[in-house]
């Protein structure tokens, strides 16, 4: 890579003190994102994917706190910033698209006022006319017909797909370099989903941004993302190019997840058991109890993230004691 990575997340730990002990919701998470790249963060409920996003946006609220790590955006560590500074970065440099557009939009303000507020908060004084002009352009850019009419209306008058476009337009209005989208299409119908994903991809790839896409939908990752970060029990267990990870998973959990996708005529493969409690963290690998490849070492020694398929040419990492050749060997996930 000739240019440095736009986003570099290094060893971030975020924990909560609960009545039953310390919960490490984000446990030494590291990953990065380049410009013009869509990075998918996948995992099941409680794996820490949303907490990771909140940590890098500076949105972890007490009693939770980020206790270690760096989040470098363009070389600047977001975790060292004051609340005021990070608030400026959110919006300016990072645009956020939430799962439910109607929760993200203010129900009692007209849409144009919401654009005006964002611009005013970040750029200081701005005339109604100029914010309106910028909002119209941005709404057009995200494929909203008749933006003038939308600006004069309220969120509740919009369909889900239109509301999510408005949220994306709001996220992009200050021209951020990084877009963070948390399940941006989960609340939308499938025929709308592709339009929104196409839009996000255009805004990322064509305009040189990075996009972090948190999702539980493996189809979205397979067909839209360039790289994938697979999380389990607060940790990254596998990273790499989507085309490689999905075709030849190196981690037994990734493999199990891909095999959980139901397909006609094949017996659905199930991952038995469930994610361990983050409080009584097992001594070895968190996945050991559910793993079909488990060996003695897994129950004693915590696996570190290590390079996988080192001869493969591209960067892949896996957190597993078992040889990745063995894991992917009978992973007939794509037959």
């Amino acid at each position, binding site marked *: 890579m000739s240019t440095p990575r736009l986003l570099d997340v290094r060893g971030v730990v975020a924990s909560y003190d609960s009545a039953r002990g310390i919960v490490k919701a984000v446990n030494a998470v590291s990953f990065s994102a380049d410009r013009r790249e869509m990075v998918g963060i996948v995992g099941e409920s409680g794996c820490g994917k949303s907490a990771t996003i909140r940590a890098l946006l500076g949105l972890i609220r007490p009693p939770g706190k980020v206790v270690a790590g760096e989040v470098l955006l363009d070389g600047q560590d977001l975790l060292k910033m004051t609340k005021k500074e990070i608030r400026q970065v959110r919006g300016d440099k990072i645009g956020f698209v939430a799962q439910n557009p109607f929760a993200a939009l203010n129900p009692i303000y007209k849409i144009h006022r919401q654009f005006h507020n964002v611009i005013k908060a970040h750029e200081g004084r701005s005339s109604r006319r100029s914010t309106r002009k910028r909002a119209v352009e941005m709404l057009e850019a995200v494929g909203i017909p008749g933006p003038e009419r939308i600006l004069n209306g309220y969120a509740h008058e919009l369909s889900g797909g239109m509301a999510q476009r408005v949220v994306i337009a709001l996220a992009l209005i200050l021209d951020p370099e990084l877009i963070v989208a948390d399940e941006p299409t989960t609340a939308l*119908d499938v025929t709308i989903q592709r339009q929104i*994903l196409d839009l996000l991809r255009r805004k990322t790839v064509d305009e040189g941004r990075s996009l972090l896409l948190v999702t539980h939908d493996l189809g979205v990752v397979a067909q839209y993302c360039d790289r994938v970060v697979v999380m389990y029990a607060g940790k990254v267990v596998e990273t790499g190019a989507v085309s490689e990870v999905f075709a030849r998973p190196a981690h037994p959990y990734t493999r199990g997840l891909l095999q959980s996708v*139901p397909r006609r005529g094949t017996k659905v493969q199930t991952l038995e058991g469930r994610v361990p409690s983050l409080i009584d963290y097992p001594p070895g690998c968190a996945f050991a109890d559910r793993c079909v490849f488990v060996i003695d070492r897994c129950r004693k020694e915590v696996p570190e993230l290590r390079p996988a398929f080192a001869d493969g040419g591209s960067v892949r990492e896996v957190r597993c004691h078992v040889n990745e050749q063995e894991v992917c060997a009978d992973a007939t996930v794509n037959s």
Partner: protein
Amino acid sequence: MPLLTVEGLTKSFPRTGRGTVHAVNDVSLEIDRGETLALIGESGSGKSTIGRLILRLIEPDAGTIKIDGTDLLTLSNSELRAMRAKMQVVFQEPYESLNPKMRVGDIVAEPLEIHEPSLSRADLRDRVRATLEEVGLNADQAERLPRGLSGGQQQRVGIARALITRPALVVLDEPTSSLDLSVQAQILEILHDLQETHGLSYLYISHDLSTVSYLAHRVAVLYLGQIREQGPLEAVVQNPQDPYTQALLAAFLDSDVSVSPSRLRMLSGEIPDPTQLPEGCFLYGRCPLRMDKCRSDPSVLRVLGSKHYGRCIRAPLNDDDWNIVADSNRTVGDRPG
């Protein structure tokens, strides 16, 4: 004779001052014993309403619903209650559909206490235990409250509660859509195995093509409360003959990276207001393949193949038909690198 026969089912909901929502419009379908019919469609297509109508949780405006030849709509209240043992339901949100103050064992026992009141305590306990075992729950879990269970276990309770009266028909209303992928796989496997063991008939309501292709034998595609296309799974999925079905299937994103995504087939605009149904074909305003007469002629289901029915007057559709549609700016899959 099919287990379930539904004819001309129609339901609308008046909204004060804002017209009438035509939720279900002249829907006819059948389900054989041991068969799964999937109802697929987007939100607002009427699929959940059809499920509730068939269970008579709400009353239809018109139509007939027959189970084993008995017309549900002519039954008295007590007759209907007896019939309910034969038709059960599993809901989307497992936790919200379980009484939070009842223990799991009592939740599962309750339908049996109602439908087989003469059962002895010992027999009741045995039936509950056997049913819990069938869905993979143990005696210890029977003592707990629903909130002490994971989402997957809660849904197992929902299935056990539906199963215990030995129903013939189970309406599955998006039973896995709130569950994680690995848990979804466990629930699908249970549903599949239960169908094999007990010869259950399922009405499977879903918007998710991957679970539909796993469970369903036949598929009915709903749009604006109307069946657009209906047929065997393979026929509908591999050879869809309605522009809406084609758009719906093309939007599906396969997790298999070796499958290149299908070309996005876009319908223009969004689902119209269900208070003002279009006059001719319901898809007219959005359809790239439309012709003049689609605007005025009401579309009717006609035979397209073996047990395969569709409404589009242009069927059999040609793949080239869609080329008249402006392509979206890019098709997915042209990732860099």
